[in-house]
């Protein structure tokens, strides 16, 4: 590989795909910085998996280009895919082979794999996802969560520069979900770029440094997580024994939409610094029991961006 490291782990330009009459992916311009944990979010059916399939060379784009680790796909597949570990649309293995035998087969399929280290790498990958105890069991006897873990183990057979994980926590129990989240953080800390698709916004919010939002085949927003959250108005919640008094002061200092609740007032901060609001309230002799700026959730950002809820798009 050349010494000129690519700035983008994944890049695409005008990436489009139509299946029959449906435009599944439409003019996608992804920019996934090297070293980021990129959350690729969108409702079911918004084109995330088709995008991932195009990135990995499984599906041929109708138009547009994409690069993985600086190399054009699908042309560079042979040289770049050994550096990429991927989980695409759930795990898929031979049901009558054991977990170990399945990984051995995938390892044999990678032309860069060293057969002499296969056993130790497979054992390490299984251990990393907590499957060592079930390594010799047939895949068909695995539970949904174990299958998902095996899929992740397959992506970890080698140290990777890029991991593409499509819905990695699907089917996992809360413990498994936490483990996967921990694993992703660990991989990222090791310097790998992680591209993780999800329809669970809260999960992406906890995991990711960058976010891309898909909606009916289009990328409606993309950037660092904080920037996306900042797109939505910042709100606050004030607890006070005297809400009406607080209301009048808040209106004076320019809070546009204060609303009274039971023992509290909520409103939009806008450009106001939170400390100035509190100072004004105290100066106006309103007792402040608690004042909490409420950070917008990704879900708020999503609704703001798309004007829609987070439902299946047709």
């Amino acid at each position, binding site marked *: 590989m050349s010494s000129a490291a690519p700035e983008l782990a994944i890049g695409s330009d005008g990436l489009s795909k139509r299946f029959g009459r449906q435009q599944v992916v439409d003019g996608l311009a992804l920019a996934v910085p090297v070293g980021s944990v990129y959350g690729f979010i969108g409702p079911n059916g918004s084109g995330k998996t*088709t995008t991932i399939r195009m990135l990995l060379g499984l599906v041929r784009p109708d138009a547009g280009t994409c690069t993985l680790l600086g190399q054009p796909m699908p042309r560079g597949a*042979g040289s770049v895919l*050994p550096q990429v570990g991927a989980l695409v649309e759930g795990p*898929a293995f031979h049901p009558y082979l054991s977990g170990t035998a399945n990984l051995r087969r*995938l390892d044999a*399929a990678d032309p*860069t794999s060293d057969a002499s280290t296969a056993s130790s790498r497979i054992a390490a990958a299984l251990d990393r996802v907590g499957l060592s105890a079930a390594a010799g069991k047939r895949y068909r006897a695995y539970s949904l969560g174990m299958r998902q873990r095996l899929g992740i183990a397959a992506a970890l057979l080698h140290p990777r520069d890029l991991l593409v994980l499509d819905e990695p926590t699907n089917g996992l129990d809360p413990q498994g979900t936490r483990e996967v989240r921990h694993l992703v953080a660990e991989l990222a800390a090791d310097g*790998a770029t992680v591209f993780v698709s999800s329809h669970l916004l809260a999960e992406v919010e906890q995991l990711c440094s960058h976010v891309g939002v898909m909606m009916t085949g289009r990328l409606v927003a993309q950037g660092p997580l904080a920037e996306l959250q900042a797109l939505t108005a910042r709100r606050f919640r004030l607890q006070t024994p005297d809400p009406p008094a607080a209301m009048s002061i808040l209106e004076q200092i320019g809070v546009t939409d204060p609303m009274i609740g039971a023992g509290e007032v909520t409103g939009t901060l806008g450009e106001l610094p939170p400390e100035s609001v509190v100072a004004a309230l105290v100066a106006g002799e309103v007792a402040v029991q608690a004042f909490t700026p409420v950070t917008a959730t990704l879900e708020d950002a999503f609704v703001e961006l798309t004007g829609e809820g987070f439902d299946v798009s047709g």
Partner: protein
Amino acid sequence: MSAGEATTRTRRPGLGTGRLFGSELLLVFGRRRNQVGLATLLGLVVLIGVALKVSAMRRPPSRGGDLVTAVAGNGIYLGFAGLTIEIALFLPLAVSVLAGDAIAGEANLGTLRYLLIAPVSRLRLLAIKAGALAVGAVIGALVVAAGGVLTGAALFGAGPLVSLSGTQLSVADGLWRLTLAALYVAAGLAALGMIGLFVSTLTEQPIAATVATAMVGTLLWILDAVPQLDWLHPWLLVDRWPAFVDLLREPVFLDRIGIGLMVDAAYAAVFFTLAWLRLRRKDVTS
């Protein structure tokens, strides 16, 4: 594990393909269903041997006649008779099962996408699948031939053969010729396997690919049996499959076998190419 190490791995030419081919053979022959299929091919020969033994005990065998009646005089002939009987349906069916699974089976399980991103290039995958089918054809034909010889020898005894031209062949010569016959049959079966490989790239349902391939095989036999279509016969894949009996002539008569091998090769080349053209551009959405 750090990402820095990840970029240094390089391709290991040849080795990788050998390993995956080994894995493929393990997958095909380790599968219970395929082992049962192979046992069935063997069981049929044994069954024929037993049936011949029973009928020979009820009624003394007549002299001369075809290969099947010759078994009663010399068990080694059961190897040839087994090939003759199983070449029409059972061996082609067995190859169809393997071929139907080749690509469609992986697509159906979803393992195709993981092989491709491992990465296995699509041409390499196809070549490995084709190679495994050829091995399957050889093993199928050899099991039938060997099973026939062992069963025949056990039931009827073994001895020097009489060639179709009337001269005597030693046991070793007879077994050598049987081996060649089995390999010749395997070549034809492998060509049918390439038809199946192509069909297997068209669908994600292995059963559908298997049924379609078996139907093609049967259709070829039917066309080959219609006298009005005699102009077509030389072009049919199966037309010269039974020519392996020419190996029992003295001297060995190679004309039909030679042309038969060329027809096999032509079918194999055409359908492997079609499979490649299909898989090369296929969107893998399974």
